[in-house]
């Protein structure tokens, strides 16, 4: 075993102290008929070989292409401070701070994380943390049901499909139902939550609504009118859940400002690498009124016996280890280290830096919009957006594949992200952030223009046959 300390002599000493002849005796409780068949795994791989193998695997991923992918996960500049802090063994090899006397480091950083997200959302209580944006959104929906003792949730189709699917799965076992609020099909508000439909859904007195969920920006990148949505929800006695993208809160009104009761979201943009899907960070915040409904970890400020300020996990009676089947959630292991990353990111970048990140993304996205429109791909919706938007490309899926073969990750075909919605079939969802360069935009537009000029594709090529060009340079 590569990391074990025990020599044969050590083992002999231990066996003698225990009073058994061999290790096998310690496993005597395992009935013979239950013993395992031989473990069919490769031989141990020395680190040298393992490192070469992993480097080779990592090299098969192409992370050097111009990328316009977003849809909930965003490339951002991550200051070097984040990894410097995260790679400190004292942080990443500690566990849940059960013993506060020797865990003030973790505890204080969690308290600071709570405070930073509270500042960002202008809500009061932040739990640290949830698995990802989807799980946090599902937990938020469940919170509205517990708080209102109602069992019906309304979710805008502007909320990311993965989140809606996750919610469906989470609700799969119980009595709670959810319905989708459609998006406006056309006109100036096309692609945003249909307020009239929401109003209709809220009026069924027999089936009172616990919570209304809408996303800002929504999954199509469009800005929603959050205030009226919240007003309608509150008028019906429901709670209002805002699903937000945290970097956008550098410039967009915070959930607290439009009276959201709960805010959920994906914390990945706050200093966390894309990593093909995780670990990310589920953001969850609420008003003081809901403090006893919020699941997950909470750290509070208190004092020690000598009156020194110190931090401790608190209100633990909500959690599974104390309350078991009556707990607010089953969450135990969370995403604490990702919360630390988000805290370091926010504290490094500061209020002005966060505004700059969001505003620069918006500026780059506007350039992208112009360039793609000039290349023949106008926007699909007229409404305002921050840094992500859909464009209309005839044969989007095929064009997307041909652009990939030219080394451009041309956003996400809406036909794949939202397969059900015919109006989106020819859409590509594209995004820009502060790391998007003018060259990348120009290259994308050029390639797209050429593909569009070349006319409709001759036919799709099979998946594995796409030959992505080798990078001239690694980046």
């Amino acid at each position, binding site marked *: 075993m590569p990391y074990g300390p025990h020599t044969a002599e050590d083992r002999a000493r231990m066996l003698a102290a225990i009073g058994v002849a061999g290790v096998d005796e310690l496993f005597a409780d395992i009935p013979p008929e239950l013993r395992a068949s031989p473990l069919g795994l490769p031989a141990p791989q020395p680190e040298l070989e393992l490192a070469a193998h992993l480097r080779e695997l990592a090299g098969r991923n192409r992370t050097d292409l111009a990328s316009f992918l977003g849809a909930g996960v965003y490339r951002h500049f991550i200051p070097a401070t984040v990894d410097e802090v995260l790679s400190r063994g004292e942080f990443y090899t500690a566990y849940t701070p059960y013993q506060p006397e020797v865990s003030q480091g973790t505890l204080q950083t969690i308290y600071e994380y709570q405070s930073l997200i509270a500042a960002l959302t202008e809500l009061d209580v932040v739990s640290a943390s949830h698995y990802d944006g989807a799980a946090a959104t599902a937990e938020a929906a469940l919170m509205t049901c517990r708080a209102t003792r109602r069992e019906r949730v309304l979710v805008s189709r502007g909320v990311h499909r993965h989140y809606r699917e996750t919610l469906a799965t989470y609700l799969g076992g119980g009595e709670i139902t959810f319905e989708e609020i459609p998006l406006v099909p056309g006109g100036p508000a096309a692609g945003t939550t249909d307020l009239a439909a929401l109003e209709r859904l809220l009026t069924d007195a027999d089936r009172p609504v616990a919570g209304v969920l809408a996303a800002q920006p929504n999954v199509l990148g469009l800005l929603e009118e959050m205030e009226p949505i919240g007003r309608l929800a509150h008028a019906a006695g429901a709670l209002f859940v805002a699903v937000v993208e945290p970097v956008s809160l550098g410039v967009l009104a915070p959930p607290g400002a439009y009276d959201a009761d709960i805010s959920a979201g994906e914390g990945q943009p706050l200093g966390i690498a894309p990593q093909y*899907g995780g670990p990310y960070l589920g953001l969850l915040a609420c008003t003081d009124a809901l403090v006893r409904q919020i699941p997950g970890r909470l750290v509070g400020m208190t004092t020690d016996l000598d009156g020194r300020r110190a931090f401790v996990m608190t209100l633990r009676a909500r959690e599974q280890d104390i309350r*078991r089947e009556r707990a607010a959630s089953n969450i135990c292991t969370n995403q604490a280290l990702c919360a630390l990353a988000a805290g370091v990111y926010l504290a490094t970048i500061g209020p002005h830096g966060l505004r*700059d990140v969001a505003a620069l993304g918006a500026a780059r996205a506007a350039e992208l919009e112009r360039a793609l429109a000039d290349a023949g791909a106008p926007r699909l919706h007229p409404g305002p957006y921050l840094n992500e938007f859909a464009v209309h490309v005839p044969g989007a899926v095929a064009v997307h594949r041909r652009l990939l073969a030219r080394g451009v990750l041309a956003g996400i075909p809406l036909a794949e992200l939202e397969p059900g919605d015919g109006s989106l079939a020819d859409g590509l969802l594209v995004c820009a952030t502060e790391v998007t360069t003018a060259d990348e935009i120009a290259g994308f537009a050029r390639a797209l223009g050429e593909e569009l000029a070349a006319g409709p594709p001759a036919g799709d090529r099979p998946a594995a046959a796409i030959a992505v060009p080798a990078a001239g340079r690694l980046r």
Partner: protein
Amino acid sequence: MSVTGNPLQPTVFELSHPGRGGGKIPHPPKDALERLPAGSRRAAPPALPEVNEPELVRHYVNLSQLNHAVDTGFYPLGSCTMKWNPKINEWAARLPGFADLHPLAPDEVAQGTLRLLWELEQALREISGMEAVTLQPAAGAQGELTGILMVRAYHRARGDTGRTEVLVPDSAHGTNPATATMAGFRTVSIPPAADGGVDVAAFRAALGPRTAAIMITNPSTLGLFETRIGELLEAVHAAGALAYMDGANLNAVLGRVKPGEVGFDVMHFNVHKTFSTPHGGGGPGAGPVGVGERLLPYLPSPRVLRAADGSFRLERPGERPTSIGRLRSFVGNVGVLVRAYAYIADHGAEGLREVSDDAVLAANYLKARLAGLLDIPYERACMHEFVASAASLKRATGVRTLDIAKRLIDFGFHPPTVYFPLTVEEAMLIEPTETESLETLDAFVAAMERIVAEAHDDPAMVTSAPHTAPVRRLDEASAARQPNLRWRPMTGRETPCPD
């Protein structure tokens, strides 16, 4: 905490000074936001702190030094498997090819990660004896939810809708009953037998047509192998229910027991325990779930598929309608899974078996050494952890388990898990893991000997511990009564300064 000076640190908000920080991001064009409707704009910048890089990094470095961690010392926290987190795994997860890959990148450009995930699934299949594995769940508890929702889907698909209960032994981890609730089931608790195993009579009495599943942790949270597991599973299956194994304690039986071969229908792994991904101060981890044939159709989507030509791809939305759906966005906590993959690869079959052998050996050694000092409620050979109890010591001296835990801090050790499992009075769950040296184990025993002696001779020394930590015991009551959960600008009196 810096090597000298006040170890406690101001909050990051107290370090803030308007105008500090900056230099990271180019300034955007002045009109960058003009096209946004005024109503959607934020009125004032968020109240984030403004700190310059030097003060900020110092803040975190000094805070980090206030933590006890696996990288600084022994951490025998039972049930949590605080073993060594190999450093090469950290390096691997940070390789730009892995770290920078967008989760919606087309399959063609994600072949490295897809292959790794696929191979990891195969390795976990082999280790567990299950038919198939999903890597999607973000943690053990989410794995439990995944598993129990699949159980529900299974019964539903058979039209067997009367199964509303899940049987859970009393000693189970809190996530088990909490999961049952989340999945819409009622939890039925099963008391333990005298030997620490499930009480078969009580179990048989509870089992019936309303039973959807039993959730069993094996080895149990008492650190014991469930010897009657064959009998239990037979009864479960005979009653038409399914058997879920909480695999959080798999570290004890790698290569010795394959849950799929034992007859479990579904189980979860805790990669942050068995496969040594670091605990991160509470997370992230990952909770892959293995299933037997019966639950195969219900696995969450998307799965990673291998084509005939050896390439890999993700299942497409809607491709497998029997799936219970997704538990989260994207495919899983990939960065964590890279570490688990590396761990399995550099141990191999032989190393993994040795992991369990040494984990069990170390636990039995500590148990034998502590037997004269504390109560050992279950005397039979333990697995990778064992329960000790201060019940007798408390009666004799007034010193409780909590006091021992706090006093251990003074000797540089992290306390064991205390007051869990709930079924043992003054419980202490001790898990030394396989990566701690005999010298460390012996030093821990010596500290315990000294503490027990103190409990008799100078109990106040123990009950007022810790004495050498940066803070003394905390006022948890007022923390809960008047929760202060976020920084608000406060006057000095309301915010006690750290010194």
